[in-house]
């Protein structure tokens, strides 16, 4: 890379992600982003000025050696780059797609101070896809067996990253999953058009090759309790990564009308159960063809739901959010994609009541306009109702995407664990240790609903503490 000066590097524009045409993609479930070509990837990698003290690495919750892998990309050693990423991240093809890089590594990128940051996420995705497409996902080296057994509850991002770390350290790892498919939110929550399920399967298979054992259809708490795993089944440590799996509703009248879904149910039907292929697949979802759909909420899940509804053939698909667009927690990229696909954004508006017919079918929602007042506890300006601004929006389907609480099954069946008032497990932040000996926890069940990469970071942190715990115990 010696041939370019930093000045020259910074003159190269940030390379755009090739993507499907918005008016074609809003009628199919194929991936929106098509991925960099080799040419685009190398050009983008040349933009990295190789800072002596790279800020981007600090911005990454799992500490991927970003500068080093990008250098390898610029040199054309894509497989070397893949190996470099995997020293710190077991799911690069997933993270390259769904991480909010603009708030993490790319937010810290020095190139981004004056111009646009290096497209780290796009490069990560390119490298992972290149490896998978050319030689297949290669596995890293595994240490000799320690004879210690770890049970991991939940096969979502935190569980998979914890499993990957621990199996490399020579421990025997079993992942328990309640559903019939592996990947947690990566398969039931995030849609095919943002994260093809084939990629999740490939990443899971790579972990299987490393020696991780996966057991589906296992609802820990019911099928086995945590105590039984540790006493009867002989696990030396347990990691709880069950996610935030209990949807919030708004507790407004009419919420139980037919056609009102939680985002979890709507997305699970479409993603996990493949209702978008009904009747080829047996699970149905409300038929929105030619109908009007409103999604309530402003996060990534809301964007996933509204874009899914559009793809299922909705005549109109709208986001209804009580604050304004700048306060929306969704990734900017997702909002842009949604707008390009024809999604309507109804901002500063709050639902008061769902309206239905005598047979219980939804046909509208009573809305109220809001305006922004003083900042609230979250630092965002609080939405305040505008008196007399109520109106009715005709809709045939509603999706509530205002977040998730914590699932009560583990809490009810594990009395020794300590939970906070929201039902999140209390852990020591440095080690992810819970109040029960040998039991660790991480991801959304600890933090409440957050991101894939934060969950992965927690899984990794816990894995290191579990390794210390297992070896310390001797």
């Amino acid at each position, binding site marked *: 890379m010696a041939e370019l000066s930093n000045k020259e590097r910074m003159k190269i524009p940030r390379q755009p992600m090739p993507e499907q045409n918005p008016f074609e993609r809003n009628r199919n479930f194929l991936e929106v982003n098509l991925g960099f070509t080799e040419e685009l990837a190398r050009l983008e990698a040349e933009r990295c000025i190789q800072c002596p003290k790279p800020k981007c690495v600090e911005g990454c919750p799992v500490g991927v050696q970003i500068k080093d892998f990008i250098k390898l990309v610029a040199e054309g050693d894509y497989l070397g780059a893949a190996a470099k990423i995997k020293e710190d991240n077991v799911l690069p093809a997933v993270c390259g797609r769904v991480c909010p890089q603009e708030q993490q590594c790319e937010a810290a990128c020095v190139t981004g101070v004056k111009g646009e940051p290096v497209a780290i996420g796009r490069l990560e995705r390119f490298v992972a896809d290149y490896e998978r497409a050319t030689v297949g996902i290669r596995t890293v080296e595994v240490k000799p067996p320690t004879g210690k057994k770890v049970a991991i509850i939940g096969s979502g991002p935190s569980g998979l990253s914890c499993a990957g770390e621990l199996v490399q350290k020579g421990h025997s790892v079993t992942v328990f999953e*309640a*559903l*019939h498919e592996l990947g947690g939110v990566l398969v*039931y929550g995030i849609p095919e058009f943002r994260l093809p399920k084939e990629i999740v399967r490939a990443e899971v298979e790579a972990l299987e090759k490393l020696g991780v054992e996966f057991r*589906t*259809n*296992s*609802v820990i708490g*019911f*099928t*086995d309790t945590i105590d039984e795993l540790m006493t009867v089944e002989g696990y030396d440590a347990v990691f709880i990564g069950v996610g935030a*799996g*209990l*949807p919030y*509703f708004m*507790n407004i009248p009419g*919420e*139980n009308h*037919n*056609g009102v*879904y*939680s985002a*979890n*149910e709507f997305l*699970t*039907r479409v993603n996990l*159960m*493949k209702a978008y292929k*009904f*009747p*080829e*697949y*047996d*699970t*149905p979802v*409300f*038929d929105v063809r030619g109908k009007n759909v409103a999604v309530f909420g402003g996060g990534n899940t809301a964007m996933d739901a509204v874009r899914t509804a559009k793809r299922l053939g909705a005549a109109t698909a709208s986001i209804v959010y009580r604050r304004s667009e700048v306060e929306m927690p969704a990734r900017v990229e997702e909002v842009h994609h949604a707008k390009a696909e024809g999604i309507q954004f109804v901002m500063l508006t709050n639902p008061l009541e769902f309206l239905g017919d005598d*047979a*219980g079918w939804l046909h509208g929602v009573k809305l109220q306009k809001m305006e922004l007042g003083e900042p609230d506890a979250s630092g965002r300006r609080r939405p305040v109702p505008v008196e007399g601004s109520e109106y009715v929006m005709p809709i045939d389907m509603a999706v509530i995407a205002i977040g998730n609480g914590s*699932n*009560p*099954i583990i809490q009810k069946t594990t009395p020794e664990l300590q939970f906070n008032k929201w039902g999140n497990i209390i852990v020591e932040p440095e080690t992810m240790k819970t109040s029960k000996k040998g039991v660790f926890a991480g991801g959304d069940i600890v933090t409440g609903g957050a991101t894939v990469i934060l969950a992965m970071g927690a899984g990794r942190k816990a894995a290191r503490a579990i390794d210390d715990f297992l070896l310390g115990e001797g």
Partner: protein
Amino acid sequence: MFRIVKAEFLAPEIKRFEILAPKIAAKRKAGQFVIVRISAKGERIPLTIADSSIDRGTITIIVQGIGKTTKEINTLQTDDFFLDVVGPLGLPSHIEKFGTAVSIGGGVGTAIAFPTAKALKDAGNHTISIIGGKTKEHVILEDEMNEICDEVYVTTDDGSYGYHGFVTGQLQELIDSGRKIDFVLAIGPIPMMNAVAEVTRKYGIKTVVSLNPVMVDGTGMCGGCRAVVGGKTVFVCVDGPEFDAHEVDFRLLMKRNNTYRNEEHDALERHICSLDKMYAEALKEEI
């Protein structure tokens, strides 16, 4: 994969499966359910565990073929497999010594009432069972109920066997005869459970029903199975499936169960057409 040790029809369209699932067999308590799936493209279907054998490592489920999936399940035979069986899910039945406990099962609901009736008997209750069916051939588990109950009454809608009428008529007769009833469990079609609740409400008899809403995951994750009990929204899969019959909003339950009526109808039609085609082709081959 979960092997079917034994499969047999109990009545037209109602089939009993004994499935190898040692973990669930060892764990399950009366009132709990499993979710099953039979193919990679299949639905997740919740079914109450009717019985289990720890020695054989098996659970028993009883399936009524109504929609495409349940009809497909009922084509499975001994030594076939269920692709997925997960459980035991839901809260166990609340069992105590009430005194005289009446378990009412309508149609395939009898299969769901059976394990709880057994648990009520084991807890020292004087156990009465009322089994209802459309006709004599739709009455199931009469012998099994006779084994575990002190008294068994059978009703048929057409009078072809036992009491001529609905289960509520038989229940009313018992009450009218001056029997003191301390607890009623009612499981069956929604209108039946609703009707039983209305009978017992007048006499202040504690009554429990087991709800059967549409479910997906069965672990509280989707909220599809929500019902209203005592004015509050509940998730049947984790808060139930059994609830106080006098608090359940049966009208809402009925409406919500119609959500996929059109899709279910279409799927079934297509399924029957493809079966017809298969039969037609099989016939052609024979000729």
